[in-house]
């Protein structure tokens, strides 16, 4: 066990994967000599050499396109996209190629790759260093989407994602990178994909969140507990394929659902969650499922704490929903 923040835990996962499987390799902009702009890959080029930790030219198309080729050969490339906001130049390779390769070859070829990318706001990054584009990938059949909230899960989920035989988009909450510390095993343990986690049991409202907003949801739950409202908070951890069981049974119990995410509201993952749960637990619902989300604007700078669905926006919604 070592106390680690999120950056260290991810670094530890990458180091473990590089040690245990010679097919694993890392690639991305500035990840080698510099160790990544967030230092997530610090020390790895030194330990594993430039053939396993590749500093690439400035091209997300190149990074993701060549990673697919490597994965088709049987390597397990882990690419870093410097900010999720910069994944779009390589979007075509992900949705047209990585996502569809298995299906279009009836399993004869597949693409075991991981795309790590820091996402989300709260670091004064403005429009292009704050986005949360998870919904675009959840909408793309063939991709898995993971978003850990804490160091322990991050390490275990990343190791699992690297072992996974399908392409996984791994969103890292950059706001949490250095903000949270916890004991993390030094082994290469796994956290399975597709399992959410009840981080706070409660009876009256189910609150779903992931990544950086998990903390806000949790704090809001604690806050409203003072007013006697008992909220169950679930950390989705894997966004897709979703842990539908855990969520549905929670809502069947509470009858009330609040979803928190940073991404713009419209056509965000929150809408899908509302629809899924409404389909499955309609007769259990005692209040309309509601979403506390980023607004439908580009991500702003000065007012980023007004844009984000922080405690002060979540708590009142939990109350309203509980008292509906």
């Amino acid at each position: 066990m070592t106390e680690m923040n999120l950056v260290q835990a991810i670094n530890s996962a990458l180091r473990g994967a590089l040690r245990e499987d010679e097919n694993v390799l890392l690639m991305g902009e500035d990840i080698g000599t510099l160790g990544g702009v967030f230092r997530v890959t610090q020390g790895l080029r030194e330990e594993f050499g430039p053939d396993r930790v590749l500093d690439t030219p400035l091209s997300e198309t190149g990074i993701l396109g060549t990673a697919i080729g490597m994965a088709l050969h049987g390597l397990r490339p882990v690419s870093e996209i410097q900010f999720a906001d910069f994944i779009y130049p390589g979007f075509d390779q992900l949705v047209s190629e990585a996502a569809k390769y298995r299906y279009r070859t009836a399993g004869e070829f597949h693409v075991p790759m991981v795309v790590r990318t820091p996402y989300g706001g709260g670091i004064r990054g403005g429009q292009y260093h704050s986005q949360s584009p998870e919904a675009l990938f959840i909408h793309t059949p063939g991709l898995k989407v993971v978003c850990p909230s804490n160091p322990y899960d991050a390490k275990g989920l990343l190791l699992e994602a690297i072992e996974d035989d399908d392409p996984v988009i791994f969103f890292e909450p950059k706001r949490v990178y250095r903000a949270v510390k916890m004991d993390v095993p030094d082994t290469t343990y796994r956290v399975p994909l597709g399992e959410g986690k009840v981080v706070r049991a409660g009876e009256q409202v189910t609150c779903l969140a992931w990544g950086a907003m998990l903390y806000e949801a949790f704090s809001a739950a604690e806050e409203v507990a003072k007013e006697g409202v008992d909220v169950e908070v679930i950390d989705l951890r894997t966004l897709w394929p979703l842990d539908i069981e855990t969520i549905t049974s929670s809502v069947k119990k509470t009858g009330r659902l609040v979803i928190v995410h940073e991404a713009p509201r419209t056509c965000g993952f929150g809408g899908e969650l509302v629809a899924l749960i409404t389909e499955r637990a309609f007769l259990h619902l005692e209040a309309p499922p509601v979403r506390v989300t980023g607004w439908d604007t580009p991500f702003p700078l000065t007012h980023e704490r007004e844009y984000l669905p922080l405690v002060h926006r979540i708590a009142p919604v939990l109350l309203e929903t509980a008292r509906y």
Partner: protein
Amino acid sequence: MQVIRDDGSLDSKLDPGLSVDEVIALYKAMVRTRIVDDRLERIQRQGRIAFHVGSLGEEAAIVGAAAALRDRDWIVPCYREVGALLWRGYPLQRYVDHMYGNADDPVHGRQMPDHTFSRPHRYLAVSAPIGTQIPHAVGLAMAAKKRDLDECVGVFFGDGATSSNDFHAAMNFAGVFQPPVLFLCRNNGYAISLPVERQTATRTIAEKAAAYRVPAARVDGNDALAVFGAVREGVQRAANGGGPTFIELLTYRVGGHSTSDDPRIYRSEEEVDAWRDADPILRLRKHIEHRDVWNDDLDSDWRTVCDLEVKACVRRAEQKPAPELGEMFTDVYAEQPWHLREQQARSLGGPRAAAEEDES
């Protein structure tokens, strides 16, 4: 660069030195490709298959390049290169089944016709988006290099694909990482209706390679032996650790872009006729006749063999049923997740089955 002279003799300085058997095999494969193509185009016109994208006039560029690659080398196709796959021994029946999207289609009817692939033949999967396969080839070659394998990768694409994002990224990565990859650009004069002169301002495509410091050659793509020689040279460079090579194969798309196209709208008959005269199959035939190892009888025998073969495949393909409906829901992931299980169940059961009948 041209190897076969007009009289069928070879430019001895450039002769890649193929044996008679090898040249005949190459010729026969080109003819077979053409005959398969013709047949598929015909049955498409009869509405028996949905679509076909052929290689009429480009057989030397495709089969000649495939022949110069070694068995252990990978082929990363665009969509006109089924001739290369057949060269490698892919069963014709399998291809025709795919064209029909029937129960024996290796991709279970999930893809449009002419979207082939085969791991045993080291032939990656065709996909429609232009250019996306080029970085795959570079990645594949980087993997081979990292694993210290004596493999190289030949990737096909058209002149139009040189305008894609992926071409640029792939070429640049190849220049920087020096993997054993061959960029095989079929410059067939058109990207659907756009002539290459309006695709880019350069006089040749080959000169683009210098922008990435990738060595380049430009050969007569209708001269199978010139293609063979240039590609073989690239393979040798790659195998010797010399990194990537770019080869422009100058040819012409004699047919339409695909069976959906009507090329008369955008080009003249005269232009096409000139290229018909430069037919790559005629050219290679001249050479083997010049070598005195081929004649009209052998030629018509071989054509008959090919024709019967493809007709038999078509006949069988037409008798096969459609793929199972359930195959629509597998292979999205390695394991089927809950939501696809549910969707599959919903799709197969319930009132739909009945309603469906009336529908079609």
